[in-house]
């Protein structure tokens, strides 16, 4: 049974790729071996085959068969939709892709078929990323990236340069998507928000519904990604930039430096503690960061934010009942 179906699907695909004009279901039934006679059984089989082709990613076009009245649906596969543009990968590049797909996996999306399409796995065992000093170094790395339902439609819209719509913080947004970033365990979208007329960042896991492509062409060109690596939570926001000064005890300075990133200026004090000068556009995120140091850090400026921390802590001290 499986072989018959495979043969039929292959023949159907061949006929649809070969034809210049859309073919009706009946024409396809006559041209492709293995279909039942006209009637309900044929229609069921044909519908299932169409679904199978779509699941396989075969771009089936549905167009009106010329000169039919009432109109009749016709089917064909356009070569430009079907064929993979040859990326021109050298063997060592293909092997490197294979290694990458084995060591870093994107949940729910990584599969072997992609590499088959690009020319197979290039041998049984990819030994190393060529050009790397020590072949053993990255071979055993295993990393997994979480999937997200928004990833594929956003990626598709980036490649097709279309805008997308999605609900975010109880508002419908329309965005020209520029870039997908994965950092600190989360996926982010950076793009141009049409209503707000500016660059915005969105957390994919906060997108509250489906990401829908539109027919509108994206007009803005993405600026180069920010230097200094991924952004921190307090760098993602829509507030006026504020410069904060944070004193961190000596024993937590290394950890703070890692969290704050290489671009943040630190002024070392005689006792080994450091005063960091941090640009912030998200007050809540920065407060949360500061509180995470417990009593090993102290927010010095701005004074309004310092007072806010004191109020925060006083409320907690009271809510938890008498202390001391």
């Amino acid at each position, binding site marked *: 049974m499986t072989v018959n179906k495979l043969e039929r699907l292959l023949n159907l695909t061949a006929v649809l790729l070969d034809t210049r004009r859309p073919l009706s279901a009946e024409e396809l039934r006559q*041209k492709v071996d293995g279909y039942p006679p006209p009637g309900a059984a044929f229609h069921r089989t044909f519908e299932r085959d169409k679904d199978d082709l779509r699941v396989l990613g075969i771009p089936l076009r549905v167009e009106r068969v010329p000169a039919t009245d009432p109109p009749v649906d016709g089917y064909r596969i356009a070569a430009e939709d079907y064929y993979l543009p040859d990326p021109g*990968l050298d063997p060592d590049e293909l092997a490197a892709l294979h290694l990458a797909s084995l060591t870093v996996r994107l949940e729910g999306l990584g599969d072997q078929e992609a590499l088959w399409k690009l020319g197979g796995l290039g041998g049984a065992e990819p030994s190393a990323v060529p050009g790397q000093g020590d072949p053993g170094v990255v071979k055993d790395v295993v990393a997994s990236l979480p999937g997200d339902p928004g990833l594929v439609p956003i990626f598709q819209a980036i490649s097709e340069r279309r805008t997308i719509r999605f609900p975010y913080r109880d508002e419908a947004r329309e965005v020209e998507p520029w870039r997908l970033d994965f950092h600190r365990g989360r996926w982010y979208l950076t793009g141009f928000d049409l209503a707000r007329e500016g660059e915005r960042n969105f957390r994919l896991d906060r997108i509250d519904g489906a990401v829908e492509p539109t027919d509108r062409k994206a007009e803005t060109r993405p600026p180069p990604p920010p230097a200094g690596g991924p952004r921190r939570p307090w760098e993602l926001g829509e507030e006026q930039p504020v410069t904060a000064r944070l004193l961190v005890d000596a024993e937590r300075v290394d950890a703070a430096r890692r969290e704050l990133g290489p671009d943040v200026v630190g002024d070392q004090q005689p006792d080994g503690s450091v005063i960091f000068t941090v640009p912030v556009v998200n007050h809540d995120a920065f407060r949360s960061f500061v*509180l995470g140091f417990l009593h090993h850090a102290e927010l010095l400026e701005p004074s309004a934010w310092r007072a806010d921390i004191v109020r925060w802590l006083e409320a907690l001290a009271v809510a938890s009942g008498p202390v001391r």
Partner: protein
Amino acid sequence: MSRITAADRMRRVLAIVPWIVANPGEKVADVASRFGLTEEELLADLGVVYMVGLPPYSPDALVDVQIDDEGRVTIRLADFFSRPLRLTPGQGLALLASSDGLLSVPGTDADGALARALAKLAAALGVGDDDIDVHLGAAEGRMLDRLRHAAAAGTEIEMVYYSYGRDAHTTRVIAPWRVFADAGAWYVHGWCHRADGERIFRVDRIESITELDRPATVRPDDGEQTNGVFHPREGDPRVTLELDADASWVVDAYPCEDVTEPVDGVLTATLVVTAVPWLERLLVRLGPSARVVDAQGLADATLLAGRAAARMLERYRPAG
């Protein structure tokens, strides 16, 4: 052999036929190994291809598969399958994300084959090289290298580790088994002599390491692959929190047991507490958005946040 659907075989055939058309005369065994198949599987697939063609299915309109005496395979007249099917958006994204992620690993050659492959693939998919940006985690390249070398060599190291949960530094001797990235951070999994058990440590909280150049005394069980980083134990204390809507991220960020449906945006969740300072810090950060409603195996849970806040206030309101 596992059951394989017509669609699965179709994927294979549509990829293999164009490759053979473009690379005539390769040995069946080599083609099979390139595509990760047994020779029998490949021959069965080619047997089906042999029956494919265009109407009227006369011999000259069928795909012509030939295998010579030396096992070299050639396919002709497969114009319609002369190029592979394009990548689906999901496949393209997965390859770019894997490649960019591996390139973010400190020590990977930024101009090597993988970087070139990424640029070519991005161009073929109609996106820029910078459009997908994956950072597996902050870690010092030298630290990762030294841990990986120790894991590969099966030797032990001594390290100074900052335990975020316990808010304390410790010196430990561990046998690193495996280094991996998960959810945006790098981890080393191995045997910890101080804890006398298997442990997982975050690489970015290792302050320093010293190679001990002595073989690890405890080896991982064969085939062991622990990728999760959190393994609650039966006897660990539990705390039940009432969380307002703006604190509901806790449910996504930490493994929870028993999460209730939100009522007016407020939900309750039970979390496993592996270390008290961790809970203290979480409660201080959540502030008014979270309340402790129940605790098991944990004395004074409702007082934790207040005590920590009082300690912190001393710093902001110096005596006098």
